[in-house]
């Protein structure tokens, strides 16, 4: 009988662990890519911190007057961030005034009321709204919202550049984002809860508002926080429509510069390095970074807790 040779390849060192150069090189490359984002963060914190430190080292500038000063006039060495901060606050407030209730309403409608067909039609529209570049919204604020406000409230009351217009349009920008995040949160509420509430004789509204919304509340809160963070960091709308020049005012119909708007205007020209203007945008940037970072961290925490309830 002829023996059939089974062709098992003989490996050099049997089953022993082998060092694979290629594998390890690739792993190293992948690892570096993964860690790269850490460098970005370090870069942000380091650069912002370094230049901001230079800014605060300048004579006539100190942290307290930076945080509490009501005047931002670099040519007379006044660096109080309040005028920039209040207008950021006003625009964000206006934005949330529009986006929070409407976004919430749209989310509830889409998740609880709309039929599959209507949802299939409405959601892409919201997605398109969310995908339009912010400069387009800025254009819209300047050429549509401002004239509209001036027609309604009078040309004497509403200035050509004003925070209200910027804020309202920012609300339209944030609305689809809040609607979509809140809708995700509402849709994640198990259907069993809705059935339970219907089974107890709840009306559709009671089921939606008293069971589904409370059950999704942390997801909704996260959506709001991200919305606020987005509003604070939003730049082009305010750069185009909110006006130039720091102006410490609470009147939303007057022009005023936000933190982001200021950075854009100052750096728009040829900014010379190591000038106080150059350094000041880092100080403002640092503040912006920490505010939005805090908000984002809070929202992530809130979302995580929300997930824990159901998963």
């Amino acid at each position, binding site marked *: 009988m002829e023996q059939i040779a089974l062709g098992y390849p003989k490996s050099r060192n049997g089953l022993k662990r082998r060092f694979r150069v290629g594998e390890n090189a690739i792993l190293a490359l992948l690892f570096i890519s993964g860690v790269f984002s850490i460098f970005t963060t370090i870069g942000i914190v380091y650069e912002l911190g370094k230049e901001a430190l230079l800014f605060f080292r300048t004579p006539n500038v100190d942290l307290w007057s930076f945080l509490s000063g009501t005047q931002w006039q670099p040519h007379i060495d006044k660096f109080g961030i309040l005028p920039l901060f209040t207008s950021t606050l006003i625009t964000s407030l206006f934005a949330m005034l529009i986006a929070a209730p409407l976004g919430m309403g749209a989310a509830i409608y889409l998740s609880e009321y709309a039929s599959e067909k209507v949802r299939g039609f409405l959601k892409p529209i919201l997605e398109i*709204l969310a995908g339009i570049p912010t400069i387009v919204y800025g254009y819209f604020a300047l050429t549509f919202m401002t004239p509209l406000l001036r027609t309604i409230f009078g040309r004497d009351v509403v200035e050509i550049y004003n925070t209200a217009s910027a804020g309202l349009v920012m609300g339209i920008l944030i609305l689809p984002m809040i609607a979509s995040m809140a809708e995700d949160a509402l849709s994640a509420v198990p259907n069993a809860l809705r059935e339970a509430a219907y089974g107890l004789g709840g009306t559709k509204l009671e089921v939606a508002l008293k069971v589904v919304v409370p059950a999704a509340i942390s997801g909704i809160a996260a959506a709001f926080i991200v919305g606020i963070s987005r509003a604070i960091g939003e730049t082009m709308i305010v750069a185009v429509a909110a006006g130039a020049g720091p102006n410490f005012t609470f009147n939303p119909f007057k022009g005023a510069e936000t933190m982001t708007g200021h950075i854009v205007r100052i750096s728009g020209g040829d900014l010379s390095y190591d000038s106080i203007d150059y350094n000041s945008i880092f100080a403002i940037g640092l503040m912006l*970074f920490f505010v939005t970072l805090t908000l984002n961290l809070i929202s992530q925490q809130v979302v995580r807790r929300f997930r824990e309830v159901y998963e």
Partner: protein
Amino acid sequence: MNGPSIQKPEIEFTDNIRDRNRYGRLWVYIFRFSTIIGIIALATLLFNIINQSSGYVVYEAKGDPAALTLDGVPIEEQTKDQLMRVLSSHLSKGAYSKLDRTKPFAERSRNDVYDLVVERIVKYEVVDSWLLWDSLTRKDEITAAVEEEYPEALLRFDVWINSDFLRRPQSSNPVIAGVRTAVLGSLWTIGITILFAFPLGVMAAIYLTEYAGDSWANRIIQTNINNLAGVPSIIYGILGLAIFVRALEPLTSGTLFGVTDPTSANGRTILSAGLTLGLLVLPLIIINAQEAIRAVPNSLRHAGYGLGATKWQTVWSHVLPNAIPGILTGTILAISRAIGETAPLVVIGASTVIYFDPEGPFSKFTTLPIQIYQWTSRPQDEFRFLAAAAILVLLALLLTLNAVAVLLRNRYSRRY
């Protein structure tokens, strides 16, 4: 049974069903209204832009176009040579040769020369303009008013977004300004963004989903990426300004490679812009790619391992091919965000007025959104119209990209 006997309390319910149903109906309207606001906003926005992108325009010429007729041929129909003769006869010698120096006439096309004639000699100026809506609804009124107020002037229905608009470079004269420089600038920038962010993002995503365990370090990386996605874009601009424009100036300005572009004196180049946007979209690409990779069923990985493949072999030949449509879709969405970004580019110092096409990564740059921003900031109506036209170009670009993304998604989503 067990425990104390149960005493039934007084239980009575109010007959409130009428009120409850009424509230129910009322709130449906409120919810529906909220949703409709979104649609109205989109419609208004589009209408507003289209409304400004075409309409009646009244031109007045400083020079008389009729006087420029050569050999009985009006300037609109003249050849390049004829136009050059018109130019040389109406301009000073110095001005003519200066034009030749910036770009030799031999290299200019017939249309370029025609534009020069219009710009330098005819000098059309917009004296009045109307929006599309008015132009369509009040046509007779406008014609009558124009005949009365500007009897000499040329009344024309202009569509601001046209082939000339796409073809022409930037100009300080709104009549002949175009977006070619800006579109090319955008494409160059995005090209660099993709080259930088796509491989890096996909590799990071592979590391995080396939290789990284659940260690605290990896959790920090993951959290960090999620946070970076929420950092305002202007912060990236500041970072780009400090790192790419300033610290890495020799690299980004090209001097390191011996490139000496006379127009770029510092690091405010396409390369800097592309890298800045790259940093901006990197977390988005990573997150999207991670999702695409996670969606690949585990059975495929096990099949690979079961055949004795190494981890990378499995990832490369089983996981990635199946995840690539999702990765591409996510990347396209991230890129469309980058195309529309304005603020970081303003901060790193986009040039607002460039008349010449970018030639490489070390050129000065402008992009479409920057162009829109710059035109929007001008007080004259004509520039607003140009901005509207440029916005339409930008939206068309984004729409195309998104359509590609949707096609990709639909085409490959049947796989599992």
